[in-house]
């Protein structure tokens, strides 16, 4: 009896321990690694047309055997399209290493929430998946461009996004979870990086093209390169990049490189009058002095700082005004900030925030600190 009991305990333990794992043994080479997905409107009665860029690896061949393989499929849901690839592909599509999802503008204008669901729900795609909107008519065009470096367009795009954030700052990356969080929060609207194809000397290539602006989950327009950069300042998403400044006609005489940047947004509410104060604290160095005038000698650090501060202030004010007027969508998250800092006021303002946003008064103050001038010629030595 005791023996039987012991055997029972062992059996129960074995079942509990062994069956709770994921029995998901799968050899690597039976997968087709998806690097990027393009989502377009479907034709012939289908709702979606999806293009998957897969990494096709063969043992030999040029380029280290890595080649892109575009698989296209139609479907009435995203998952449907994903699985209907299995009619032609001998390997199961594998999304764990998928880097980017490119949405066509046409689809984005109709709302992206239905598309997001599968990417969020399925076990394979990661929440760090990066989302972009294609400025070209279809997203597929972007994905099927031959990349400049390497073989896989999706890898190039994701690297470009990363380098852009560190050294240019025009298209802040949005990952799947951020997209979802933004869509489900009040007082902030979504922006996604925009991407477009570009004619180059030898064929076509892709480039980032600022941002696409959303209201709710529908795309309503675009922001160009420079405004996108100022947008990134407001959101505090600047990690690097340049500021072109100067005096009067010599508007780009000075180029500063951003070292560090911090932004504080402070809302003030009195009745229905909302004032937002944006303080940008910036550390920079002089990167280039492309001018006949020697700003360093004539104006010194303080002078250059003043120039840069003025440039930032007018730039940001202008951009915010443009967004208020043109789109009326709170992509800066001012509403969210009021919610955080002044929750009582927010409860009152929330129902009419869409209208109020356009009347928000914005005060921008920038504080630029030059860390060094990288001077190559001694003073007086000319």
């Amino acid at each position, binding site marked *: 009896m005791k023996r039987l009991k012991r055997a029972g305990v062992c059996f129960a333990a074995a079942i509990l321990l062994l069956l709770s794992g994921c029995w998901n043994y799968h050899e690597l080479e039976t997968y087709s690694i998806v690097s990027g997905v393009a989502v377009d409107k479907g034709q012939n009665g289908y709702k979606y047309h999806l293009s998957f860029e897969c990494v096709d690896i063969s043992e030999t061949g040029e380029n280290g055997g890595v080649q892109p393989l575009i698989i296209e499929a139609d479907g009435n849901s995203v998952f449907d399209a994903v699985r209907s690839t299995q009619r032609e592909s001998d390997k199961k599509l594998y999304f764990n*290493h998928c*880097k980017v999802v490119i949405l066509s503008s046409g689809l984005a204008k109709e709302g992206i929430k239905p598309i997001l669901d599968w990417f969020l729900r399925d076990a394979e795609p990661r929440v760090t998946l990066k989302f972009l909107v294609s400025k070209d008519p279809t997203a597929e065009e972007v994905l099927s461009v031959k990349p400049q470096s390497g073989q896989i367009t999706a890898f190039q795009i994701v690297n470009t996004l990363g380098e852009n954030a560190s050294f240019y700052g025009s298209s802040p990356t949005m990952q799947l979870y951020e997209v979802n969080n933004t869509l489900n929060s009040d007082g902030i609207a979504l922006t996604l990086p925009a991407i477009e194809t570009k004619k180059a000397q030898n064929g076509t290539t892709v480039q980032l093209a600022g941002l696409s602006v959303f209201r709710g989950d529908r795309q309503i327009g675009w922001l160009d390169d420079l405004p996108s950069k100022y947008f990134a300042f407001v959101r505090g998403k600047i990690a690097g990049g340049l500021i072109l400044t100067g005096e009067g006609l010599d508007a780009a005489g000075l180029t500063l490189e951003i070292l560090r940047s911090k932004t504080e947004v402070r809302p003030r509410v009195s009745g229905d009058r909302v004032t937002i104060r944006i303080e940008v604290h910036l550390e920079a160095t002089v990167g280039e002095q492309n001018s006949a005038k020697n700003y360093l000698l004539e104006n010194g650090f303080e002078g250059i700082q003043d120039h840069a501060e003025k440039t930032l202030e007018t730039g940001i004010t202008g951009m915010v005004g443009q967004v208020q007027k043109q789109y009326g969508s709170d992509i800066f998250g001012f509403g969210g900030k009021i919610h955080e800092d002044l929750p009582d006021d927010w409860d009152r303002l929330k129902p009419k925030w869409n209208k109020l946003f356009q009347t928000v008064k914005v005060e921008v103050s920038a504080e630029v600190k030059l860390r060094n001038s990288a001077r190559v010629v001694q003073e007086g030595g000319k």
Partner: protein
Amino acid sequence: MGGSDSFAGSKLPSDSLDRNMTYLKDLFTGDETLIFRTLENRRERKTDRFCLVYEDGMVDNRLLNQDVIRPLLEFRFGTDGNAGLIDVVASEVTLSDSVEKTEDVEKIIQGIVYGDTVLLAEGCARALILNTKGWKTRSIQEPETERVLRGPREGFNESLLMNLSMLRRRLRTQDLKVKFLTFGRRTKTRACICYLNSVVNRAVLRELENRLEKIDIDGMLDTNYICELIRDAPYSSVKTIGATERPDVAAAKLLEGRVALVLDGTPMVLTVPHLFVEHFQSDEDYYLNYVFATVGRLLRILAFVITLCLPAGYVAMTTFHQEMLPTPLLMSIFVARQGVPFPTALETLLMLVVFEMLRESGARMPGIMGQTLSIVGALVIGQAAVDAKIVSAPIIIIVSLTGICGLMVPRIKGYVIVHRFFLLAFSCVLGMYGLLLGIIVLLAGLFSMTSFGIPVMSNVYSKNLQDEKDLYVRAPWWMMLKRPNFLSRNRTRQSTAGKSK
């Protein structure tokens, strides 16, 4: 230690030399190395007859000739009877450091077979056992398995007394206690327990003595016999008894409060209790700068983890959790896997077995054939197998890394080999979850293991900082003021704290 062929209690049959000789000859029938040398001394008008009995090759012949035979022939014995003859020989004639007078046949036999000479005299019912041991032993050499770059180079050899002398030379104190035992019904192997009386943990000593008492075996050729007979968990592959060939290591362990067991005929000296961390402690740790020693020890611990978990981790990552691999790495493994006929799990298992075969053949093979092995191993199994797409290149890397790390911790070899396959089996079925489950099982096993009442992981979970100073790091000597808590009674190692500069 008795047995059916024991002569305990029986006595020499008579006081007649001839009858005693016949009796011994009968006992040793078939042993042609046994020599009976009869002598007659007629100096005082009376004939005194003696017989020397010894095993050829076991005695020092010159010593026998000069210090036993010559005095026996030249001594002028008195004329009064034969009764006191043997006493006279013992006290006045022979030049021997150890003389034992006995009539016990068992003792006589033991003396003869262990290089002593037995002297029988006419008219005496008792015999003298004279110490004339003289055989060649291996000289003192540096042990092959425990070489050091810096530190003492002496190693134990196969002679019990010589080993004890090496130990004694390092611990010149009356506090070193040495207690003799005999094992093996037929081999009658001598062994001894050594400990420092004022430091040793009494409970451990008592436990060891109790377990040794229960041993009843016919032959005892190496300390591993004892090891397996008295170990705490007979089925486990965790070592609970340490073994060393180095007198300096043995002395250090005694100083920490451990008990050593030296066995005649083997250079391997056992020490108990044996903690898990001792697998990673090298004697050289204490002879080199502590920074360097600490780096070495951390590397050894890391190597242990790698050699245990790497193959299992690789299988889990590439067949269950491909999302955990960075994309470029995934792609290169992907390329390497193209066209390989076996599943990753089988491939890993096969290559691990092949590696163990290579290692085993390397260990058993005569040295001159080493080159053949390395060529076959490296070229045929490594390169050719990858080129022929029988196995994938990453597997070779994984297995080699596993092997190299395994060679870094040779003391825990057995445990590693068994449990590497154990973890691999778990991860083949359950992926990373299985690997973690397996590791938990192993840890539970280790933490519940005791060595002579001392948990082998006791210093790992000790809250005492002094116990940690010789664990992951080797603290400088001026910081190690106390002996390990759980091992010894008297914990003070240095009473004046700190550096003496």
